[in-house]
């Protein structure tokens, strides 16, 4: 009944809560793995699928909020906090650091399930984003040095004539490079290439009107 294309991690020191949450998620067709402490979670081998993390604030080893801070550097699943005593400052802190939700026990199941689903969706999106980025980088690395010179000039909107003058090459040569760039980057149009350049954070260095004086 549960599918393998996603996973929910549960970190709570209370066995009853772990049990109940696993049961609840399973009843909703969501696969989950439960851990008793932050350390256990960090050390565990985790499947590389879209995931979400249900994290208790009060943990025996370290505070859930501190764990959030620790794992913030790497890519991690979106976090849904649950707590026995929720206070406003810590919930604000958690949300500001990107938590999906901050639920106080006893929480409603809908809230939890919604939050988990949101988390999974966010992670899925993030994963797609990351995959697309990886592909783009791969294509970009296939460009020759000259083609990498041509790309910013083209996406800046310079006319072929202007770009050729900028690089000190003939307009015909430039057109060949430009065609190669479009092909290698698998861009359907110039507009598509501009979007890719933006994602790759290639700066727009020139203007068709010529350098500002």
């Amino acid at each position, binding site marked *: 009944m549960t599918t393998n294309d996603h996973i929910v991690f549960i970190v709570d020191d209370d066995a*009853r809560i772990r049990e109940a949450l696993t049961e609840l998620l399973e009843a909703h067709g969501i696969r989950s793995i439960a851990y008793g402490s932050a350390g256990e979670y960090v050390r565990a081998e985790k499947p590389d699928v879209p995931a979400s993390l249900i994290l208790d604030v009060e943990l025996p080893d370290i505070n859930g909020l501190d764990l959030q801070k620790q794992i913030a550097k790497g890519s991690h699943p979106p976090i849904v906090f649950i707590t026995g005593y929720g206070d406003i400052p810590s919930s604000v802190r958690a949300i500001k650091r990107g938590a999906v939700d901050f639920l106080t026990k006893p929480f409603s199941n809908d809230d939890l399930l919604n939050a988990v689903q949101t988390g999974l969706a966010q992670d899925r999106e993030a994963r797609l984003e990351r995959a697309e980025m990886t592909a783009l980088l791969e294509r970009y690395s296939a460009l020759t040095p000259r083609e990498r010179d041509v790309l910013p000039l083209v996406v800046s909107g310079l006319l072929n004539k202007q770009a050729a003058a900028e690089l000190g090459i003939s307009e015909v040569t430039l057109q060949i490079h430009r065609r190669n760039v479009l092909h290698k980057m698998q861009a359907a149009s110039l507009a598509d290439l501009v979007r890719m350049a933006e994602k790759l954070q290639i700066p727009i260095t020139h203007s068709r009107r010529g350098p500002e004086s």
Partner: protein
Amino acid sequence: MKASPYIRGEADWYAPTAATMMCVWSHRPQLLHLAIFFSAYVLGCGFAEALRIVPGITVSIWPPGGVFIATLILTSPYSWPWWMLAGCLAEMFGQLVWFHSPLPAGFLIYVGNALCAAVGATLVNRICGRPVWLETLREVLAFVVLGAGVAPLVSATVGSATLAWFGVSSQTFTAVWPLFWVGDATGILLVTPLALVVIQQWRAKAQLSAAQWIEAGVLGLIFLGVAALSLSNYYLPFAYIIMPPLLWAAVRFEFKGVAVALTLLALMTMALTISGDSQFVGDPESQRQKQVMLQLFLVISAFSALIVAAISRQHQQAVLTLRQSERSLRELLETLPTHIWCTTPDGKPIYFSQQFRDFVGFNVEDKDADGASRPSNVLNAIIHPDDRDTVNALFAHSLATGEPYARKHRLRRFDGQYRWVETRASAMRNSNGALVQWNGVCLDIDDQMHAADALRRASEKLAQATQAASLAELSASIAHEVNQPLAAIVANSNACQRWLDSDPPNLERAQVTVRRIIRDVNAAADVVSRIRALFRQSVETKTSAALPSVIAEARSLMADEAAQRRVRIDADVENDLPRVTFDRIQIQQVLINLLRNGIDAMELIAGERILWMRVRRVGDVVQTEISDCGRGIEFPDKIFEPFFTTKQSGMGMGLAICRSIVESHGGRLRAENNKPHGATFIFTLPVDEKAAS
């Protein structure tokens, strides 16, 4: 005459060595002093010659003996050879001019005189120490008896023997000896005090007031008049009439007066005797007896005057010391940084110290305009109106019973400000136990009172804040305890619903979740009932009962849990324990709590797990001890504080509540660490008074 410190050892003195000789040389007196000594000695010889009125007898009063002994008393023994040499020359001079004895006889007599001076000076110095001030009765007596009495025995013996041997003026030993002795003694008594006073005290310039000068002048005139009248044989044929003015001089002017008066007396006597007007001059037959009478007269005068002067000096010293101690005592009273006061036995003020006078602004002697005593008018009025009645009642009670008085109250200062003071007073009684006066102190404690007030207010606020904080913590703690199972229940029930709704319904899973729901609901209910039990105000009133029954109950209640966790509970309950009054449920709660703590404490130990209970009577309490052999208590001070816990799942309320229960029963609960390991919790319950009596 140089007075050198007397430090040398006696052995050096008796065994003359080169070093001793060097000492003698280095101690040679100044030539001027030797010359003065020589002149005084020769003058003394002349005086003796002038008084030598008995025909055929060569001895009379011998002033040089006094000069000699005074000089030796004041100088170092190492310089004595020099003085003896000078004395020898002076006496030989006297022999040549006046006495005309054969030279060897004169020398032998001198040897006797020198020995007398050396013996006298050594004895007096030995008894009185140095320097000899002749200030105390002891010193005067030592001088009179040893210096003037014993020492002349030597000179009298040597001198009389010489005279008899050489047959000078055909005198016999027995006839001359007494005259010789009395003559030397008189000379010493008359001259030595004068010499000592002149040398030692005249240096420290005595300050005489105008009145004293006048008194001295008047006394001198009276003295001379009486002396002239009494000593001459025309008017008052009774020489001792001189005594009153002599003693007057002794009492009022002490040694200086005595020295001057005795000198005057001796000179007068000499003048009158020479002129033949003295009553001590008579026909040749009675002359010998008259001579003795004259010498006795002088000896008795000198002796009496010296003793009186010494007594007077001692009295003066005592009065001075007394006055000084009185003054320092008064200064102490006046300068102590507290208010001191005294009242009569019936409470009338008789003394305020300076500090108290400054505080209240008046003194005990002050009178008001109406002529009434100010303290009696005002003292009551300056007590704060709110305190006045209790102060008066309390002080009246003390006055009536003689019990010490102590009270803190407000007192109006001279500037109108009321200040807190602490007054304490106690009765002073004489040797018969009768109350003589009340002595009291009055401390200004205004600043302390304000500080204490502020402290009390601060701690009240703190207590309120702590209470509020405790309540907040407590509710948070309870919420967490209850929310955990509730969250589980909600999740499980939702899952259960899902399993039942699915097609086909997953009954197996639904059952699992329902079981969990039931378990968690029970857990939540448990938490709630536990909390209720903690805060339950027991409706059961306290009853008087025997403690062992409750202990047995608690043991049986815990038996299962203990067995499950491999803990043995041993109990040692004393027989015939007295009954105590307690709330059965509450004390059972305490016992179970302590037993469970003990079992928990031994969770991790490997050896035998024994929980040991001991109940016995200690004084007027029944003491229950529960000892475990766990790891002991790390924070014995803190374990009774609310919310302090060392357990994974604990609210930290158990021991705090146990303590409040025990204290509400009038007992105490405390914890101790055992040696080598484990902890003991001890609580006491007071024995019923009826049972105890």
